């Protein structure tokens, strides 16, 4: 029974759904022969292929045929495209990666990855200034026709893609997102809207089969694909021991340029990025730094357009005090030399104009 009754992608999806699977094992399975051939070997309980352990193979042999149909139906229902590294659509950049996923699940248009690509990652618990920076960075990159690759996590990842969709340029680049869970399992759930939008306008990629939950171990694996898909990786804010640092290590292994946004020294969500800078990583003060790293023409005017109402002279003085460092209202008033009442008025006006942000008692300037 060596004929394929279903399309090859269905067999590939079924193989990617096997238990006890690692990306190395899947690559070996797919490399052996066409997915249908390998699947039928398992169904007929043939001898293990060389290099596979007896007990793993036995578990795989006991996977029922129904998995094949169920997985295929899930993919069809959720418009998930299954691509193996034998397909033409498979992202070219991943071919060079020794740890590439042999089968990828995607929603949207994989050709989005043919553009210039910059990975933007960072902590989930970012400061408001960091979030703002990620947003403007995403917007400027999209305007310059650079695809923003991110992980759709809370915080920086989310904001960078929000920025992409703010881009107004005609040729704005659609974004790419690499997620850890199955593509029909939105995680975190509050990003449902953005998730859907990226799937329809850009591309959503995962190596996990549909219905795979967002388990902890999947995130570091996701990070390696994210790093692999980026030409330049920008870390906006990261804790000293954060998930973004895993992405950074994966990028360094692959000789991908890593850049970091400097942060205030006393802010714990900037510790990781500041450490990277100390270790000689290139700083990003402006989107132009990223363009230079990509070798793009920086003469073009492709920054995000400033739409906010300009601050008055008094308000500008407050912004100067706040620049780069989050402060409490008492501290700002002390440094600016005015009463708390007047400072509350000034900060209130600046907040209405969206030049400052206020969270948990800390005021931050949103410059750039």
């Amino acid at each position, binding site marked *: 029974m060596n004929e394929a009754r279903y399309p090859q992608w269905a067999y590939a999806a079924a193989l990617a759904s096997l238990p006890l699977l690692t990306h190395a094992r899947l690559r070996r399975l797919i490399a052996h022969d066409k997915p249908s051939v390998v699947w039928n070997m398992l169904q007929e309980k043939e001898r293990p292929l060389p290099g596979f352990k007896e007990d793993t193979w036995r578990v795989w042999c006991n996977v029922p045929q129904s998995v094949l149909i169920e997985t295929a139906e899930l993919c069809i229902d959720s418009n998930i495209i299954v691509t193996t590294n034998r397909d033409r659509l498979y992202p070219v950049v991943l071919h060079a990666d020794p740890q590439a996923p042999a089968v990828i699940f995607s929603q949207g248009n994989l050709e989005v990855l043919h553009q210039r690509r910059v990975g933007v990652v960072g902590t989930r618990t970012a400061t408001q200034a960091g979030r703002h920076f990620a947003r403007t960075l995403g917007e400027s990159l999209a305007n310059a026709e650079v695809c923003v690759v991110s992980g759709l996590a809370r915080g920086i990842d989310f904001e960078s893609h929000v920025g992409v969709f703010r881009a107004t340029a005609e040729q704005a680049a659609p974004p790419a997102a690499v997620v850890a869970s199955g593509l029909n399992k939105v995680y975190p759930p509050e990003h449902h809207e953005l998730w859907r939008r990226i799937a329809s306008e850009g591309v959503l990629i995962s190596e996990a089969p549909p219905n795979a939950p967002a388990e902890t171990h999947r995130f570091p694996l996701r990070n390696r694909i994210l790093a692999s898909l980026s030409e330049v990786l920008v870390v906006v804010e990261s804790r000293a021991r954060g998930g973004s640092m895993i992405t950074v290590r994966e990028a360094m292994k692959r000789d991908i340029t890593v850049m970091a946004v400097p942060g205030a020294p006393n802010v714990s969500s900037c510790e990781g990025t500041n450490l990277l800078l100390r270790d000689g990583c290139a700083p990003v003060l402006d989107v132009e730094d990223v363009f230079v790293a990509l070798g793009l023409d920086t003469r073009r005017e492709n920054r995000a357009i400033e739409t906010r109402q300009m601050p008055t002279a008094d308000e500008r003085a407050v912004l100067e005090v706040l620049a780069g460092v989050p402060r409490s*209202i008492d*501290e700002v008033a002390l440094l600016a030399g005015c009463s708390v009442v007047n400072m509350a008025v000034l900060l209130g006006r600046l907040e209405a104009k969206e030049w400052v942000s206020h969270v948990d008692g800390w005021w931050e300037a949103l410059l750039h």
Partner: protein
Amino acid sequence: MYAAITSATLLGTTGVAITVEAHVGNGLPGFTVVGLPDEGCRESRDRVRAAMLSSGLEWPNRRITINLAGAGERRGGAALDLAIAVGVLVAHEILTPESVQGLSFIAELGLDGSLRPTAGMAPLVAAVHHSTPVVAHGAVRESLLARPEKLRAVNSLAQLVQVLQGDAPWPDVDMSDVSIDNDFVPDLADVRGQASARLALEVAAAGMHHLLMVGPPGAGKSMLARRMPGLLPRLTDEEAFACAMVRSAAGVPLHAGVVSSPPFRSPHHTMSMAAMVGGGSGHIRPGELTLATNGVLFLDEMGEFAPTVLDALRQPLEEGVVHIARAHGSVVMPAKSLLVAATNPCPCGGGGPGGCACQLPVKQKYFRRFSGPLLDRFDLRITLTRPTTAELTSSEPGECSAVVAERVRTVRELSLARQGCVNSAIPADVLDEVAPLSEDAMSTLRSRLDNGRLSGRGYHRIRRVARTLADMHGHAHVIDAQWVEVALSLRATFNAADGTFR
């Protein structure tokens, strides 16, 4: 054979006069108390018997029946011991009915025949003010809080019998009026920096706006809250006595007697609902809410209180009284306090900017404990940060409590003269009249309403706070845009989307 003795029992924070009837007759020797006595009162049978025997008095080996007249309501308390003993003595004809004429008896008996004070002496004495109360010597000070015209005090049952039989005179009682003392309240000058929190405290005191402080440990939330009583106006004599009566009823020791500083109550977060609003089995005791009347109720670590306890606060805070209903009756107790609450911004305590590593669902769960309606009771919701070294070491000490209290008093007088109530209690329908907004102020509020930063409910509260702020700065009529801006900055909201207060 029969005697009727006046005494009093406690119902919530007030005393109720009752008649203790005693009957000693033929029959199988026994001692029963009828008339819905509570547990404490049933125990008094044994105390009364032992006290009489210890005092060298004859115990009637006959059928003794005590009735707490006015059946239908459960009552009791150890304060009835003395009345029961005197009733038995009169019914057994050791004392004459004439000797107890015009007297009422309120004291607990010891097994040795000594008289002891009980909780709630002040309201109990107040309930029998038309007669001459006889109390324990140790209870004189507390009893005088009720300002009775006459008061008798004895040390023991034996002494009382001697006096009533005419063998000894009544011992002297120092009837000098109770002085009103000032309790020690920490001063605001001790607080360095924290200018915005000081402002919030002053506004809270001036307009009786409930205050919620959100900040990491070490930000000085408790320190600030403890200084609140010093900013509030001193209690009037009437309020001071009422406050002392409530404390007496709750059995809270009156170390300083009557004090004119507003009470400060800071209950622990493990408290039960009955401890908060009042209640309990048997007789209904006042809760912390009532004890804090005319003062400050401080809830530290509000996130740790049981959600039911917090939600029970909502209605009393609005009405100024608390109704406790039980199967056998209901009581109404005062509950007009300024609520000051403190909480951490998240379970980890937050700390510096971007310093909180709590996951979003954890933060959301933490704040789900505070129901929207409860958070809405707080006109002022401020976020605090740990003061910086520069602030802590700044050589300028802040204003002292007395200066701020003076301004608070001025605003209170102004608002009472204008609308007859404190600013936080201005009814919504007269807001336009007493708190008119300038053109600019209106447009500021409108823009905040439009961009969703302000709810319809918050709108009125902002206007009341802006009224207080304008009053504090001598702008007695039209409210300027800047006061609305400041009021808005003093009302942080919890943002469920990213689990932050802003």
